[in-house]
């Protein structure tokens, strides 16, 4: 059992624990912070599995941009406390049942693959090689992703705009 193996299990434990904490927090700011921790762990995992460029992106985009976006929103809206239970039983039990079912099914399916049980050798894809590969073989997909992001930008702007003026009147008149 090499040092890398030990490192993997430690990181895996960290990710799972942080995610589990994030999922069960009542306070959403806490949840987001735990999730940031989980994403840092994921970034380390990526580094360990030979994808340093992705590790950097994970921190920048996920832990940096996306989570901060969540924080913005949570700060922006002022939530009242919901009445009733934190986890309604009628929803909790089926959710647990389904998740456990998924876990069982995926474990059985994954475990049934015999060639997946041999340990993998460590390897590394340098960012430069990865970049060349990405833009040589997947340039079209990259372009499409950039279009997608543009659409998201416009869409978020349209949705977030406050509606004023005549449209408010039409809304009143609407049945």
């Amino acid at each position: 059992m090499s040092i890398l193996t030990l490192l993997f299990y430690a990181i895996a434990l960290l990710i799972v624990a942080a995610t589990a904490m994030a999922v069960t927090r009542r306070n959403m700011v806490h949840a987001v912070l735990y999730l940031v921790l989980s994403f840092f762990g994921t970034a380390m995992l990526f580094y360990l599995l030979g994808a340093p460029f992705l590790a950097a992106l994970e921190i920048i985009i996920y832990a940096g941009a996306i989570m901060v976006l969540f924080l913005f929103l949570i700060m922006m809206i002022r939530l009242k406390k919901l009445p009733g239970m934190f986890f309604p039983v009628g929803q909790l039990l089926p959710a647990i049942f389904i998740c456990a079912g998924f876990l069982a099914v995926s474990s059985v399916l994954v475990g049934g693959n015999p060639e997946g049980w041999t340990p993998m050798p460590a390897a590394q894809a340098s960012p430069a090689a990865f970049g060349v590969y990405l833009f040589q073989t997947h340039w079209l997909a990259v372009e499409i992703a950039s279009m997608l992001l543009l659409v998201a930008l416009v869409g978020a702007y349209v949705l977030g705009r406050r509606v004023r003026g005549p449209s408010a009147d039409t809304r009143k008149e609407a049945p």
Partner: protein
Amino acid sequence: MIVPLNHILLLSGLLFSLGMFCTLARRNLIMMLLGIEIMLNAAAVAFVGASLHWQQMEGQAIVIFILAVAATEVSIGLAAILVVYRRTDSVDPAMEAALWEKGGRP
């Protein structure tokens, strides 16, 4: 030598089911979105592991696109939640449904 592929996949599955639980059980639109992020992240982990296993960069390329999709989804999703919050003063999925039920645009 690191771990076998199956361990990575199991970790990914565990993360995925945590995210699924978050999406299914939390009565809060923001937390549901968060759960979706967790599920996307779990998929990314599985892809990176597979990329290492077969010594191919295809998997890592896919993760780039997952990141792009996640960013898109979060920006649109959060904007939509904001709209809902402005209209109903709540981020409870059930509340939204109930208001829609009552007729027309809440």
